[in-house]
């Protein structure tokens, strides 16, 4: 009997403690990201970006203390993402939502943001239509068409007339393919072949052979990070396709640092387009990379920088509204914000609430004995092209 009473009083004390913790001068941010499962690494890097920002800029914004509540969505699970967003708002009483690596999750949470009128910052998910889900949403990462349509035009303007494309057969891959085709053809180029390989594709040899049969002057590849970039590069090398005889174009995932380590020198000369590389030469980036390496012993990537910039928007908006957290005020404050991010100059488009940034064209080169992506060209102030078009 005594034990029961002790247990009950402890429980009561805990409940009171928890309830009392929500003081009036705290702003709560609900972070939804995959911290476990297949995409766990992206969630970790995103979290590192958030932590670094708060470490460098303090934990106060708009005059109030910032508190983070993290929820693991586990992977692609829009029903879970939606529920987590609802619970964060209803149960934990967060003032705004942030995070979102994966598109289906961002879409589902967007509905909640619109329904509950909460400010939402998408720190990674790259599908264009996400931004339309809620008028209180901004994005600080990049969109797939931003990169690939621009790239298509660039590729033509720099001397390539015909391209064979190979992409992963799922949503983002299709987006990239269509964006690249649009940009390339609009500039005057010709697509001589377009293949799609299954998402879970251990062996690329068949697809590479098909590409080789077309004898292209250039191949464009889009695939997600992970094990595939190295695998396809090796498959290409096995067939004797390398940048000395065929131009190889890809989105930045193709030449991520881990992939480059596996590819070796056969990767030299691959040209990719991306919005961020840790080698970007700018003082802001240098400070960012140094801080990141010191704190987490890792190199920052697009997930880290998207989150870092997302926090910048949140802090900046809160400072402007002097701590007011309603969706309308925050999104109005965020629109048009422009600043120097580690990736370069970026801003939030006031019309679409989407990100405007610079797309860099990089080439793989050996610098100081290591393979790195060296930026040699860029296209500035790129907006998401699909929002200029009719739906």
């Amino acid at each position, binding site marked *: 009997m005594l034990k029961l009473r002790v247990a009950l009083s402890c429980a009561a004390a805990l409940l009171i403690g928890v309830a009392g913790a929500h003081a009036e001068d705290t702003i709560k941010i609900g972070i939804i990201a995959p911290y476990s499962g*297949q995409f*766990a*690494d992206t969630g*970790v890097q995103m979290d590192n970006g958030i932590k670094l920002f708060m470490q460098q800029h303090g934990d106060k914004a708009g005059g109030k203390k910032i508190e983070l509540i993290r929820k693991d969505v586990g992977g692609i699970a829009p029903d879970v993402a939606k529920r987590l967003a609802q619970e964060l708002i209803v149960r934990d009483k967060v003032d705004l939502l942030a995070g979102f690596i994966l598109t289906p999750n961002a879409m589902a949470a967007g509905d909640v943001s619109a329904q509950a009128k909460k400010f939402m910052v998408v720190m990674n998910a790259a599908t264009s239509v996400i931004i339309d889900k809620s008028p209180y949403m901004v994005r600080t990462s990049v969109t797939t068409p931003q990169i690939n349509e621009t790239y298509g035009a660039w590729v033509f303007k720099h001397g390539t007339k015909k391209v064979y494309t190979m992409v992963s*057969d799922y949503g983002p891959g299709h987006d990239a393919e269509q964006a690249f085709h649009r940009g390339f053809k609009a500039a005057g180029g010709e697509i001589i072949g377009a*293949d*799609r*390989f*299954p*998402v*879970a*594709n*251990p*062996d690329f*040899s*068949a*697809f590479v*052979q*098909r590409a080789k*049969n077309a004898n292209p002057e250039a191949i464009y590849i889009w695939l997600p*990070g*992970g*094990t*595939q970039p*190295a*695998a396809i590069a*090796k498959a290409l*090398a*096995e*067939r*004797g396709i390398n940048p000395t005889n065929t131009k190889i174009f890809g989105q930045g995932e193709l030449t991520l640092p*881990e*992939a480059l*380590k*596996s590819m*070796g020198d056969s990767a030299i000369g691959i040209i990719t387009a991306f919005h961020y590389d840790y080698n970007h030469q700018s003082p802001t980036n240098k400070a960012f990379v140094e801080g990141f390496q010191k704190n987490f012993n890792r190199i920052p990537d697009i997930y880290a920088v998207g989150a870092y910039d997302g926090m910048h928007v949140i802090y900046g908006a809160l400072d402007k509204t002097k701590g007011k957290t309603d969706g309308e005020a925050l999104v109005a404050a965020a629109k048009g914000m422009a600043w120097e991010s580690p990736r370069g100059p970026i801003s939030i488009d006031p019309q679409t609430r989407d990100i405007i940034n610079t797309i860099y064209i990089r080439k793989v080169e050996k610098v100081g004995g290591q393979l790195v992506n060296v930026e040699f060209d860029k296209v500035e102030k790129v907006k998401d092209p699909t929002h200029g078009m009719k739906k």
Partner: protein
Amino acid sequence: MISQIVGVLFDGLAYGMLLFLLSVGLSVTLGLMNFTNLAHGSFAMLGGYVTVTLMRGAGWPFLLTLPVAFVAAAVASVAFERTLFRRLYRATELNQVLFTIGLVFVMAAAAAYVFGTVTQPMKVPDYLQGSVRVWGINFAVYRLFLIGIALVITVLLVGALEMTRFGAQVRAAVDNQRMAKGLGIDVDTVFAITFALGSGLAGLGGALAIEIVGLDPSFGFQYLVYVLIVVAVGGLGSIGGSFAAAILLGVSDVAGKYYVPQVGAFLIYAIMVGLLFFRPAGLFGKR
């Protein structure tokens, strides 16, 4: 035209050989012990991580890490078998499946904890890279190496099975366990050794697979599916069955993706479902 077909067949063969190495152990232990060990893919993953760690951490040459990968996976499997698996030999199939799936989860999480969730970078030595050109066709050196190793192992396995006393004991135990015990064969030890061999081969397969398909903690799950397909199609307990099924699946997967890429992903599953429906015991299965 001919050169393309040859090229496709060669790639399919190499892919099939990889699948064979990864699967043969499971086929034999399933047929022998009737124990559904879905953690087989995780032993392959273990072999892969052993190789990567030795190469990057200790600077070992690739070829030298292969026997270590084999031994490490074999030892680990014996440890699990002695302590955990043997309690489940009488359990229902569902329980075995779920138990070993639990083990896959745990091993994947452990791999993520120790090595991180990133893909492990690895480069094989230069003499295994690149390709040789014969009759105008490019044959990748690494794939030739794979096929070579797989053939050697197949010969060794079949030889051991057909021509050694131990092999005879294994065959007897597969055909009729009770009878074999009645004849004085120490079925327990036969189990343990065969299980170790099978898992060791998986570990070797895992180490060899990294160059082609990459390594990260989800390896155990991803390749489990392909391994199960090979085992089911080939028939339990049959090395020849696994060999045939692996080649069939490897070649049809590559050929399918080459000639009709739109159905590339479907083909391997469709073949499996179709074949199992008409021959539930697999191509060479006994039950």
